[in-house]
């Protein structure tokens, strides 16, 4: 019993760390979001309650930013998931020459996002399209293509992450299950559908969760490539947040941050429930 009580003290450093860098700043941010605080007028800071939040309900620009952010998140995660899974399945095959080039596939992960985005902005894609007589296309200047463009650049950068996570998952699947299925005459599709997918579901959901949270908060690539334009075609919640902070509207900016947190937390909660559901209930 005494040992158990002593053990609780070992939680203390972790709790202090959690409070110091997470919960206290978060509470402060929430507190600031209830104020009208403009840095330009430091002597005119007023408590406004939920007014900063209420404005979002009437603001078509904010609604549009939520839609754009959601479209980007769903699109990017879907492309990254399918491509990552496909590549992981390909590289899991016993083909000798594929193994050495695994590391090449990971290269975009090592590129700083701003550098990667700048590289695409200067026209790498149009160079290749032009070389085969298909370009140039107005990737960033056409409002219909701009969101697709930033989704593709984000996918280029993070498909390696999806690949890595799923490839690691595939590598630890028990080989005897596949051998038994092969002996029973199961096709490759049947093995994939009834063995690989159920056993890999945890990993898949985890990868989607991590990337989903990340994509919803994506800023640097969008900022470099389009700055939210043309018009409001790629104006996400994070771009609005950056603008509000940049103009010194601390209450409004923190309110946007809190709304983002709530949306990501709900997304996280739904996916975590799916991940933590008992295996039997899922299949």
């Amino acid at each position, binding site marked *: 019993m005494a040992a158990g009580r002593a053990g609780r003290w070992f939680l203390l450093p972790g709790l202090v760390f959690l409070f110091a860098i997470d919960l206290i700043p978060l509470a402060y941010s929430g507190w600031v979001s209830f104020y009208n605080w403009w840095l330009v007028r430091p002597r005119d800071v007023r408590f406004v309650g939920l007014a900063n939040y209420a404005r979002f309900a009437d603001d078509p620009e904010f609604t549009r930013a939520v839609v754009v952010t959601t479209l980007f998140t769903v699109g990017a995660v879907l492309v990254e998931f399918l491509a990552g899974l496909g590549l992981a399945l390909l590289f899991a095959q016993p083909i000798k020459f594929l193994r050495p080039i695994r590391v090449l596939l990971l290269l975009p992960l090592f590129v700083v996002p701003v550098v990667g985005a700048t590289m695409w902005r200067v026209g790498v894609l149009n160079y290749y399209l032009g070389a085969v007589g298909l370009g140039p296309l*107005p990737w960033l200047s056409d*409002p219909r293509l701009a969101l697709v463009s930033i989704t593709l650049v984000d996918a280029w950068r993070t498909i390696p992450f999806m690949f890595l996570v799923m490839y690691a998952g595939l590598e630890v699947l028990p080989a005897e299950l596949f051998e038994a299925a092969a002996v029973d005459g199961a096709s490759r599709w049947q093995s994939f559908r009834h063995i690989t997918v159920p056993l890999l579901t945890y990993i898949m959901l985890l990868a989607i969760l991590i990337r989903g949270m990340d994509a919803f908060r994506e800023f640097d690539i969008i900022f470099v490539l389009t*700055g939210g334009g*043309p*018009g*409001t075609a790629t104006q996400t919640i994070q771009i609005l947040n950056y603008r509000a*902070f940049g*103009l*010194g509207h601390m209450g409004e900016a923190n309110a946007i941050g809190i709304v983002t947190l709530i949306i990501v937390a709900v997304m996280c909660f739904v996916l975590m429930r799916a991940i933590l559901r008992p295996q039997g209930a899922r299949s």
Partner: protein
Amino acid sequence: MRISRSFAGVAAALLVVLAIAPAADAPASAQGKTITLSMLAGYKEDVLRANLPEFEKKTGIKIVVDAAPFGDLYKKQLLSLSTGGRYDVLFMDEPWIPPLSEFLLPLNERMKTLDTADFIPTTVASGAFQGTQYAVPVDPNVQLLVYRKDLFEQKGLKPPATWDELLADARALHDPAKQQYGIAVTASSDIQTALYMLLAMWSYGAELVDGGKGSLNSAAGKKGGEVFLELLKYTPPNVKSYNFADVNKAVQLGQAAIAIQWASGAKPMEDKTRSSVAGKLGYTQVPKAVRQTPMRGVWTVGIAKNSANQDAAWQFATWLSGREFGQAAVTFPSATSAIHSPRFSVLKDPVTKAALPYADALLASLQITKERPRLREYADIQENLRVTAGKLTAGELTLEAALKEIDAGTNRILGK
């Protein structure tokens, strides 16, 4: 023996004098100080850094440069100043002075020590707000019209003096099949788009804020907006993703026959190692309609009110706005952008005129230049203008709807 002792004494005194000699130009309270400068990164930074050692050697004041890109500089300065940050001196675009004035040191008394008669008056005004001088002009920026002399001669055209002539010339010189485009401007969500549009609207007599209210939604605003949209028919295909540097690039690559660009961008256009049209360009004032309104955008330097090194900071500010730095800056081979000088004596100097083919156009434009509204809320108003201009050029809004939205946003910001 006595002689040698005297000699040793004189030598020692000389050594002491020599040791302090480098700092002789600075007042005692400024010597040996280190001051932190908030500076624009990239654009103009190279000119400054190249000349800093000279200042440090002369005054004994050490300058620590904290540079940020244009899009982040105001945000960084506002955040730093409002939270008691570390900057002593700030390199600021003039529209930032009203919102930052709360945190800047009034300089009216110190300005009396400068030979202000040598400054172009509009540049001095750029550092003032509500009768108080908060900053000293360093780099007088203004929009200019740039045109290809060779192409104009081939077609027998004259440089356009009015917006109608500009449209006609852009149309005549627009030949996309040859990758030759009439005019380079931005049409993206970049701030330059809003400023181009505002320039045209101003020329037709519209005002962004008049009588404390948004007032672009007028016949003059509409006419200016129509002319701006008409110009976009004669631009390179990707102007909807263009920024300041892309306009320069279009000129330097010889793709644009005409451009409206800030004077800051003109110098690289004349650099033979970076521009295929160096020596082929002409410069004149922006076109007029009912009035001529080249937009002013002077870069200034101010001192933080809470700086512990105000004398050293002032010493640095006066050096930056001085004739010596101005002369060095105008002849500096800048890679991206230039710092000019707010002084008549520098801009009229034959050496300057030889180095800057646009010196006359710059000086003439500065004398009639128009300032943007001097309001604490201007940064917000300009941001609203930027977003709405981006929606207009992206086709999300009609011109009528955009004008209404700009005014509604301005009035909301001003609490009207």
